[in-house]
């Protein structure tokens, strides 16, 4: 599984406004805990990674907050859907902002096509019984064109404070 890929030139066929709309939609589905729609964004070779200690090391040898392949994303969402995932029952109230969106390059995928790598800054306001918490950082996404739609291949979330103790992260970041 690729984590830090060698980037090639930004591939053609990705319209900036279409990509932005996709990222906003992903953000809204996560904010509103719409698990089915959020899950449907992912490809089968998905990777969802929240490292610690800055950019993180080799996630197969070192601890991460989240390092989910497609199968584990599914498990995580199944647990959430039970309504007894207490870290997220009741669900957090969430809204996030995404900005500084940059097309970073292309990543050759297993089918030989080129996925788009996009970077963006984010700020999430989470309100729950415990308190209100601000989660901020930079996310790196890889998007794949699948006929008329975009799909999410990879999302890496680097929290600015991931070198310090973090409170429970029960929602989809």
């Amino acid at each position, binding site marked *: 599984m690729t984590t830090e890929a060698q980037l090639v030139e930004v591939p053609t066929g990705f319209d900036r406004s279409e990509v932005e709309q996709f990222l906003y939609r992903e953000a809204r589905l996560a904010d509103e805990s719409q698990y089915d729609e959020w899950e449907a964004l992912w490809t089968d070779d998905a990777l969802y990674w929240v490292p610690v*200690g800055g950019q993180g090391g080799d996630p197969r*040898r070192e*601890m991460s907050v989240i390092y989910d392949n497609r199968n584990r994303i599914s*498990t995580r969402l199944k*647990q959430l859907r039970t309504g*007894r995932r*207490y*870290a997220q029952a009741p669900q957090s109230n969430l809204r996030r902002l995404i900005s500084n969106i940059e097309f970073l390059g292309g990543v050759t995928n297993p089918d030989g096509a080129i996925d788009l790598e996009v970077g963006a800054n984010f700020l999430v306001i989470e309100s729950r019984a415990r308190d209100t918490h601000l989660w901020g950082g930079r996310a790196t996404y890889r998007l794949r064109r699948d006929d008329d739609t975009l799909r999410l291949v990879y999302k890496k979330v680097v929290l600015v404070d991931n070198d310090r*103790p973090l409170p*429970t992260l029960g929602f989809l970041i």
Partner: protein
Amino acid sequence: MTSSIDAAADTGSPYDRLILPDKVHGSLYTDARIFEEELRKIWYRTWVFVGHESEVAQPGDYVRKRLALQDVIMTRDRDGEVHLLLNRCAHRGNQVCDDAKGNSSTFRCPYHGWTFRNNGDLIGFPFFKGYGGRQLDLALGRVPRMESYHGFVFGSFATDGPSLIEHLGAAAGEIDRLAQLSPLGKVELNAGWLQHQTRSNWKLLAENETDGYHPQFVHGSIFGVTGSTIGPLYSDASTAVTRDLGNGHSENDLRPEFRKFAQPMRWFGTTESRVPDYVAAMRAKHGDQADRILIEGAPHVMIFPNLFIAEIQVFNIQPVAVGECVQYSTAVQLAGAPELNKRMVSQCVGSVGPAGMLLADDTEMYERNQAGLAALDPEWLDVRRGMNREVRDENGFKIGSATDETGMRGFWSHYKKLMEAQ
């Protein structure tokens, strides 16, 4: 019936009023004065787990750790010796180390340039004429006593007292059991630590770690969706036992259940055929004992006050305030078992830390529990479960059923002893 207040009048110890055989008072978790006393009488006196020697594998390696509120630098000097230094310049108290980890033979204070060797010795200070010479009888502070067991490093701020091995007592055998699962007999903790901020008193965690009553309820959501075999280990029908190991240590001994199935690697949720190299290495090392070791698996032991070994994961609990602590968690890594190590990291990442599918729910319970304790009535937490069926095992340890609060009662008995000492 004697009320708790009457009992207190008999002996005069405030802890006689707060800790009874079958219940403990809520203020033990919420009173800041009790927390201050715990710092003095427990955290800065008894043996406290700090880190593992494998985190500073090479000479010059260092890593910042916590021991309660103390900022500790664990170093390995050029002779290979491990030190627990305090991050405070001997000049005016500035912090001498600001990186989380690294490799350096010296620490140089940024304030006035005083430089210390990684064994704590002061080796230089600028403009020495102001001190009348090049030598000063100053050094970095240190945790007065440091000992390790199978590489697990413990520190004690008491200059004398029981040795680490005396403190560990029967719990040492559980660390032995973990090390025995390595084909080289060696545990490493070198996969890095997650840091999980937890808004509850540290004792709620220490008590929960061998509470076999909660898993089916708190973790029912993940057991259900993964078809996990863990749930039944902590059921009314389970043959597993909860054991008070003495000195505040306790365990959920799951071996009776694993022996029943007699399947090697079942404890790890897998089969021999999935980890053939590991099993072959273990058979080569342990011969006819290998099957027993591979069937019985890893320990589930809480070592007072802050080291929890939960089969494949290790937790280091450090208090921050009366209502806050941090859980540091990492995957066990077994030397000579690369096949198993990657799986342990993967499983551990899925289970523990802020987003862990097990530990985030435990932590939710700790935090709600702490919030619940603010209610004024009833004042007590009940710890009587299983008192009616507690017995002594063949070694004289108190044991209860899988879901009994035997471990908690052992914890409180030792806690009371430490808090009543002067």
